[in-house]
């Protein structure tokens, strides 16, 4: 890996923490809490599909009223808050790798699609908070991670420009936006992105199964 960059932008779920799988798992917790039938054909897709999308597809197919978008999100976030508090963990070798970048004097931040309140719970539990200049989410800037502008704003806050940043990410859509903004991409393998693995390998400047490869 080439360390000629000014700053590093880390995604959180699936990149720093093991929490991406738990986000997917909340769709199942939602179905059980609502006493809706769980079908094999839905379970098969659970880890590969966003919770909200899976639930709305099920609701539409089987004719359930699961409530409006905001109610569903709030409920999924309630399950997720518990997972951040009780189940979240750093992915293997994350603290060691962050220590290495810190020793090299690289400013780092976390830019997550999850609410930053949750991010702080998960990062504090993992003992990672002190590595970062700041933790931001997509709500704070009002731009989501599918937009290149998101990475421009985050880079600016780090005092640099996207072409001087490396983005650590597990999700294809965010890699595409970061790439379009001019960032370099380090792709971290996560099982929840297994369906996009070939495309991710194409777009990434570096593809790793785990941080041990960078140590």
């Amino acid at each position, binding site marked *: 890996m080439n360390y000629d960059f000014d700053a590093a932008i880390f995604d959180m779920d699936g990149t720093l923490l093991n929490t991406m799988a738990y986000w997917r798992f909340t769709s*199942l917790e939602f179905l059980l809490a609502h006493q809706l039938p769980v079908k094999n054909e839905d*379970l098969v897709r659970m880890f590969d599909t966003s919770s909200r999308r899976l639930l709305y597809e099920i609701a539409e197919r089987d004719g359930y009223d699961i409530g409006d978008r905001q109610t569903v999100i709030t409920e999924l976030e309630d399950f997720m808050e518990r997972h951040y508090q009780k189940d979240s963990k750093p*992915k293997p070798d994350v603290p060691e790798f962050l220590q290495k970048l810190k020793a090299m004097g690289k400013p780092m931040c976390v830019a997550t699609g999850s609410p930053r309140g949750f991010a702080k719970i998960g990062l504090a539990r993992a003992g990672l908070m002190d590595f970062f200049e700041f933790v931001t989410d997509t709500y704070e800037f009002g731009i989501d991670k599918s937009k290149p502008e998101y990475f421009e704003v985050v880079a600016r806050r780090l005092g640099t420009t996207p072409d001087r940043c490396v983005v650590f990410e597990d999700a294809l859509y965010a890699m595409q936006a970061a790439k379009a903004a001019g960032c370099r991409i380090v792709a971290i393998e996560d099982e929840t992105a297994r369906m996009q693995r070939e495309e991710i390998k194409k777009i990434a400047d570096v593809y790793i199964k785990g941080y041990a490869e960078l140590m």
Partner: protein
Amino acid sequence: MRFDFDAIFFDMDGTLIDSTLYWRLSAIEYLMGRGIVPDSEEMAKALNRSTMETLKAVFDRLGMEMDDVDGMYRKLHTYVERHFREDVRSKPGAEALLKHLSSMGKRLFVATATPTHMAKAALESTGLLKYFEAVTDIREVGIGKHEPEFYRRLAARVGVVPERCLMIEDALYSMRSAKAAGFSVAAMEDYDGPEREEITQLADAYVCDFRELLEDTEK
């Protein structure tokens, strides 16, 4: 069904509480906790296999040994207990039926294979605990539900002859031993299984929903 009994025993998982899937799916939570995500084939079978069967299949695929089975069970219990405290729901009509039976002066009990402290957590969080005179598990009774002796001991504990006892249960193996001990049995349907035919023959009543039982008591 006429509730002409002196003691009515309820199974918990799958009978009073919609908890069967939380047990099955704790296998997935255990794996996530170790940074493992089941593949789609394993997920397709997760509903129809026991927790341990799911874990065994994943471990085999990854070439891992199941070395610490006790630790594994403890962890699985932790996940299930969390859902019992915070997420589980009672079966539709369960509370209305218990309330009705309770107002008729019936003595109500829970007899479960789940550890008593976990059972009480689920019953408490769903508001059902207050209807029961006692909650007991197979460890306290000292024998499993597959033995008629389990049911003889239950009857003796509450001072009622087996012929005046009713067991409401969703698992066939347990219905068999309850019948063998002289109990009457009401079968609760939890999820579809190949055993349905035998269950309908064995049970004195077969119910899909407690609301049907309640209607019967009001006839």
